[in-house]
């Protein structure tokens, strides 16, 4: 009678350990990260594309703004402080895979920086696909990667009905005066203070 109980107990421990290791295996994958140091008062946004946060996708500077970098490249200067890893609690690993693949495509398309439009485009209606983006900012890069895949980040209007930066009408609400990396982080759930 005792033996089956022990087996059940050990099995439960094994399942628990497997789940824990699974959590750690994908810990930072697909999650938005932020640092300060942008014109003193603002933050810079990026997306971790590796499980340990060492590969980062972001939009920075002008030509080929969308690019891959490492932690130091993201932080840029030792005087800048890492402001945390963020996530959306309800998202799982499959969801983050979609976000990362969209971000990867933005990187491959080598989209230029746009100082004014978080996600610039020339479309008049419907959706703005990755190919149709004419310029992008760091907060637009993160916002687009999530919202193209239906994961809402910044929301406005009644019941947050205006949210999709990849849709022409909703894109109009995502202006430089309505959004910034710091305000974007406020719409996400805090996950960790660092990538260690």
């Amino acid at each position, binding site marked *: 009678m005792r033996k089956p109980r022990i087996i059940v107990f050990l099995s439960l421990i094994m399942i628990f350990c497997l789940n824990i290791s699974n959590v750690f295996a994908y810990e930072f994958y697909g999650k938005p990260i932020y640092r300060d140091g*942008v*014109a*003193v*008062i*603002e933050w*810079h946004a990026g997306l971790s594309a590796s499980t340990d946060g060492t590969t980062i996708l972001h*939009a*920075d*500077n*002008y*030509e*080929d*703004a969308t690019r891959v970098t490492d932690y130091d490249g993201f932080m*840029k*200067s030792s005087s800048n402080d890492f402001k945390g890893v963020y996530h959306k609690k309800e998202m799982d690993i*499959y969801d983050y*895979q*979609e976000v990362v*693949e969209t971000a*990867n*495509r933005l990187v*491959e*398309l*080598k989209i*230029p*920086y*746009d*100082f*004014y*439009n978080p996600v*610039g485009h*020339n479309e008049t209606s*419907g*959706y703005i*696909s*990755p*190919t149709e983006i*004419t*310029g992008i*900012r*760091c907060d637009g890069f993160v916002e687009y990667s999530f919202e*193209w*895949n*239906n994961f809402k980040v910044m929301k406005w209007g009644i019941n947050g009905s205006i949210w999709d930066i*990849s849709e022409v009408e909703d894109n109009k609400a995502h202006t*430089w*005066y309505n959004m910034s990396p710091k305000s974007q982080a406020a719409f996400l759930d805090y996950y960790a203070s660092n990538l260690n």
Partner: protein
Amino acid sequence: MKKKIIGAILGVLLITTSTIESITVFSQEQFIEESQQVNMELVPTLECIDKKTHFNQLMKLKNNKDDMDEYLQNLNTKDLLLTIAETAEELEKLNSTSDLSIFNSYTDKFINKLSIDDYTYILNNKEYPLSFKCFMMDFVNYHKEKDKSMKTNIKKYNKNLRKLLKSKDNDSKLQVRSLILIDDYDKNDITMLENILSSDDYTDRVKGYALKALTKIDKDISYKKIKHIIDNSNKYSKFELRIALDLLDEIKNDSQESIDNINEVLKNTKDKETLDDIIWALGKIKHPNSVKTIIENKELFREQLLKLYVNMNYLAIDKMLNIDNDPSTINIALECVEISPFKEFAEKLEILSSKSENKSIKEKANELQKKIDGYNKQRNKHWDYY
């Protein structure tokens, strides 16, 4: 004799100097004449930029957001323009030019104060920091619909963007931005764009965006170029090939021809990035034959991109699952469902598992129904617009 020789040398020097001066004056005057109404009182001088008066002041205020805000609010148009130019030069040294967006909140001051000629002067001035020019380009693009004067004169501004493009010694950042921002392309631009595409003096980024612009004007000419890139992919950069593959579906109504072109690249590459580009290109076509190509070659592609491909082509795959299709088509579609078992496939699988006369299809559909329950994901409708 000596005096005569010295006199002659001095004479020659004097003539040479005055000639150089007159050439310099001429070229400046000529430029201003072309631009006609540049307000030289407003545009920053290099001497003033070098002094960094405003930048140094901002650095003193940098730890107090309110003070910095008050300082920038109180600047007049001329000093704000100068502050942006000074800061751009300093940020370029730090490789941090995106920080210039901090000035966005204050640049409304330029509306109705700066003319298209002033913006044109800024873009053409080779001594100004590059990021200052890029910032001003984005400013014009953002405000051109709202500012009446800008809207009226935008053709003149676009003409200047074309000049920037034709001048091969301009920085590629300006050239790429010019290609994106020109909003009145017509048949007269074809030669310019073809010249860019055939020249070695332009970067592959510039050429990629030139190909996009050409596609907007003349799909037939663009297709010839794209076909050449696809048939001779080893002679082009990965980026040029990527753009060519990406544009295929916009150019060709004939999906099969596009698929054949992509197959040609597929046969000749093992490059991981190009294989990704092939998935993206086939993903846009949304035709059963493109689905077939992907499934027949699925070992070549990354698992995650295969999942994405099924998402992109949901509508085509869903039709392929119709019970009256031939078994080979249904089997290809079932392989897609296995890759990404979205909830939306459940209805068709239910029909197949209950009504199909083909035993293996029936069993597979039944098995995949269980997989859908475990996966519990919906497709992303955004991809229907890709």
